[in-house]
């Protein structure tokens, strides 16, 4: 059974009498421990799908099911313990006046989980940060380090599903590879399910088993990883996206730069 099931999801924003249909009738299903990618240019509704799952966007139609159960509104703590998200901009996603320790231990406090000291240190080690960083403030860290903290925070509650909203697009190329490899390692170690958004097919190619291409809020095509690597896509739009990033993909999997 699929872990994430989305059926005919529609999201419509209303502002000043205008309606913007950001997502139109998108359906997808992601199996447990699968890594699923959403690709498209900006404004294609890919991030909105993630936000809709988290209850941060107005769902106007369709259903979202996690583990066979429709998600409750508001999402609630049980949902928090299952689904977490890593945001795009690590400079904006950490509270500037909280130490890393506070950022990481807060989810434990909310859910009444004990043994916080050990779990915070463990979380830092898991994402490859030295425990000495524990009482630093975000402004004392680099972008890549911040994104590692954001990933650690998302994993504090040991969720099954991680929603990744362009987790590396704010980072420079060498750091990007490190963070992507970290995410792949964590997925293997903790048996996570990824739903990942990116505008960069090279990133998606490195990370995902299946890919959905979106344009103007609609599904264009769903491609398996093998078909993407062999450039077997059926629509012209998917092919044009592929060609735009093909030169980087043909270099093979992204290696960490030194």
């Amino acid at each position, binding site marked *: 059974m699929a872990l994430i099931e989305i059926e005919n999801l529609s999201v419509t924003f209303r502002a000043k009498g205008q309606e913007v249909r950001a997502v139109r009738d998108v359906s997808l299903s992601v199996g447990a421990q699968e890594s699923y990618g959403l690709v498209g240019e900006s404004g294609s509704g890919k991030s909105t799908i993630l936000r809709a799952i*988290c209850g*941060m966007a107005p769902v106007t139609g369709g259903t979202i099911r996690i583990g066979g159960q429709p998600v409750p509104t508001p*999402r*609630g*703590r049980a*949902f*928090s*313990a299952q*689904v*977490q*998200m890593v*945001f*795009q*901009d690590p400079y*904006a*996603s*950490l*509270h*500037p*006046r*909280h*130490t890393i*320790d*506070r950022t990481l231990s*807060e*989810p434990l406090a*909310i*859910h009444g989980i004990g043994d916080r000291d050990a779990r915070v240190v463990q979380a830092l080690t898991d994402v490859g940060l030295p425990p*000495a*960083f524990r*009482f*630093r*403030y975000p*402004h*004392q860290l680099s972008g890549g380090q911040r994104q590692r903290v*954001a990933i650690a*925070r998302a994993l*504090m*509650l040991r969720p099954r599903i991680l929603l990744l909203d362009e987790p590396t697009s704010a980072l420079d190329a060498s750091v990007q590879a490190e963070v992507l490899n970290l995410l792949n390692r964590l997925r293997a170690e903790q048996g996570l399910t990824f739903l990942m958004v990116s505008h960069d097919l090279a990133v998606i190619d490195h990370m995902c088993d299946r890919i959905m291409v979106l344009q103007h809020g609609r599904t264009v095509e769903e491609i398996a990883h093998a078909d993407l690597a062999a450039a077997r896509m059926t629509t012209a739009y998917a092919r044009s996206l592929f060609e735009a990033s093909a030169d980087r993909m043909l270099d093979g999997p992204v290696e960490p730069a030194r």
Partner: protein
Amino acid sequence: MSTLRAWLSDPNPASRRQARLGQAWLAWQRIRRNRLAMAGLVIVGILLLVAAFAPLIAPHDPLVQDLSRRLLPPGTPGNLLGTDDFGRDILSRIIYGARITLYIVALVAVTAPVIGLLIGTVAGYFGGWIDATLMRLTDIFLAFPRLILALALVAVLGPGIENAVLAIALTAWPPYARVARAETLTVRSSDYIAAIRLQGASAPRIIAGHVVPMCLPSVIIRVTLDMAGVILIAAGLGFLGLGVLPPTPEWGLMISSGRKYLFEQWWVATMPGLAIFIVSLGFNLLGDGLRDVLDPRSASR
């Protein structure tokens, strides 16, 4: 000393306390480089010391009258700043008046910003009808001139120092609510609030733990800048006979009683006036300096 400094500026603090003290140390370093802010801090510090040690510093009892020595000019032996119309020593009265000024300032500083912060952050965070209701309430309070509203409140409650504080606090909170709401609106749509909401945090936890710390610097700056205004309003109420009651040595009251002699015995009104002026200046300079130190835009750099 040098080990303490190294401990404070350690980039890898070993505990929550060290991290917090390290940040405070950095803020102190920034404020120390700002000369005007230091001048303000010194003035406020002197005010605190004078108020604390008033009985030791004051040469005379501020309430003892000596009609044979009334309206003596400044520089008279025994009465450095002269005496008022009841022959009381003006210097001693100013020194004891510092206590009352500080009392009023402190009480207003712990009430008005707290009310304002609470209303502003709640309005900004929830939005919708809660925001509309709370902000219209704020508008109503803002629509009245502060002194007039304070006057009306004191007239209802009766004169006295506690009622003066209450009146000032009730008229001083709306600007804090505005500042806090504006700050909350910029913070509430940020990713770190979305992240903590996604962790399942309750609204009170988000407001108290995540929104308020972001609003606090602007509110603190506003408070120190407003302290001068609070002192002036307290003095104004005293001057009009609606604040502190005689014979308490309150600065505004002292100016009021010196008004009759302004042309012949100018020092009776001028000396407490100077005290108000210097203390107001001190708070303003300190507020300006704190703005440079605490402003989130400059602190992030």
